[in-house]
């Protein structure tokens, strides 16, 4: 009887050979370990700038700075009479010494957003967050469009520009901005003919902050 009991116990042990951890087994030719995978998905937004590609005009280069600021754009040497060519395009003053000159360029915004359930009201705004210093004889201007279209009319004169707000954000991509569709817009610096002891000369910088809001 003892011998029978021992035999049964031995058989039970052998039959249990594949019931251990699935990384290893004896007396078989196959083993199947598993690996649990986990991830937490987050929604994401991205807004990148790049050099414009509008036909028929020159383009100031938008350079990724890789930090703060994220990008830079240099209009070159400018003056209120439109004497200097600047780095891209210019509109001379209608009346020298009376009206302003504008040096301008196109540029592109690429809004991308993912994993958003609600996005139909998505917008892009811009605001001068660090302005040129007083007396502001030079200031940032933008095209007057607020469309969400991929392209807007290429400016044909100073009338197609308006000062970019320093107090609040201006909509440059209206509700309905599409993820992955580049927006071509126009940006410039307007130089006034002001004369004063404190007018700005030399290299001046300002910062424009663009904001993509998915909503």
């Amino acid at each position, binding site marked *: 009887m003892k011998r029978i009991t021992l035999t049964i116990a031995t058989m039970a042990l052998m039959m249990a050979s594949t019931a251990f951890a699935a990384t*290893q087994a004896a007396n078989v030719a196959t083993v199947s*370990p*598993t690996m649990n*995978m986990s*991830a937490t998905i987050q929604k994401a937004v991205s807004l990148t700038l790049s050099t414009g590609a509008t036909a028929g005009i020159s383009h100031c280069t938008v350079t990724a700075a890789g930090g703060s600021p994220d990008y830079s754009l240099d209009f070159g040497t400018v003056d209120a009479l439109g004497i200097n060519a600047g780095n891209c395009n210019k509109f001379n003053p209608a009346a020298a010494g009376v009206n302003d000159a504008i040096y301008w360029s196109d540029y592109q915004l690429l809004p991308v957003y993912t*994993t958003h*359930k609600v996005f139909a009201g998505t917008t892009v705004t811009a605001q001068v967050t660090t302005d040129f210093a007083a007396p502001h004889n030079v200031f940032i201007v933008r095209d007057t469009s607020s469309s969400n279209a991929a392209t807007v009319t290429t400016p044909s004169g100073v009338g197609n520009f308006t000062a970019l707000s320093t107090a609040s954000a201006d909509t440059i991509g209206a509700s309905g901005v599409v993820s992955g569709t580049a927006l071509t817009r126009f940006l410039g610096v307007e130089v006034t003919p002001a004369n004063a002891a404190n007018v700005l000369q030399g290299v001046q910088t300002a910062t424009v902050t663009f904001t993509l809001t998915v909503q």
Partner: protein
Amino acid sequence: MSPNRLHQHTNTAPFAAAPGSRWRGFVRSGDCGTLLLFILFLCVPAARAATDLNLTATATGVAITPSGANYQSSFGTLNALGVPPAVPTTGVSIAILSNGALYFTTLNIDISGGLSGAQTVNVTAYASTNFGHPAALIVDSCPSTSSCTAAANFAAMSTNVGGQTTVIPSMGKNTPTQIGLAIFVPDNNGGTAFAGSDSATITFNANINGSGTFVDTVSLSLNSPTETLQTAVQLNLATHGSGLAVTAGSDYSMTFGNVNALGIGPGAGLTTVAQAGGIIYSTPYDLLPAFSDMSSTSASISVCASMPFTHSTILVLEDSSTGAGGSFSNVSTNCGAATALTSSAGDRSTITRYLGLFVSNINGLTAYTGADTATLKYTLTVP
């Protein structure tokens, strides 16, 4: 009446018996009637001043069973990977090595009778009947001068009577001395692969130190029951270099952490790979196959998503051999037609693959944010 008392002898020079003979004691030659004494000695062996080499179990070692003048034991069920159910006989431990498994135990050897108090013997041993499959099962020993609880102190025992392995350099009588005995089961695939029953016999010989005179021999047969060698397979997963950590536990897990379809801020160990419709988070990892006593020297490995992510259109598991852009393909979600990773996996090889997690850039009502889980099932098959 004892012959020893009838015939007093003063010559204490031991009689040299040949190794392997069944004479287990001193035979004193002497003054007269040597032939008669010899005959009486043979007829009444129990009455002589016997010198016996004995094997006994240690407190933690395998059981040693007397069998006539010799002994029997067994290490049980073995395999080269030391994987369950290779829990061998009580008293046998497993050391899992990089090229096999060592099943080891300790036993005591002592010698009684015959020797003077100043005499010591050395004990040698050899596998007088080696395993029938010497590429699959190897008798190892550990000398009394070493700690026999460490695999490094074991070495293959001689199979040659003319060049035996010294297991005890010096031992006085009635002094049980511990040695180690082991069966090394190496990885052994291909033509010499073996799975089944086998046995071996180890012969121990004691010789007096100094004179070299043989005094006794015993054998230990590893046949009660016979040793059982099984095939074994194993597939481990491991972290590769600076890749995402592969964590052991039911059976493995890998956490990608926070992911998004733009690949912003991949976690440590992850890189992003461009992919239309989203992005792939990629990490290398290692597959570590091992197998033994298989006729084939190569194995196949496949993988399937036995449980895809709940949001299976947003998160998709992918595989690549290089991790390069464009090289990823979806891991099958049909385990009946799993994604083949290799058909030439060698024993103890390291196979580096890249696991990709595709994150869709979809927006809208089907978009999902939050945690999700999936399970990959890897299968190693040795044909």
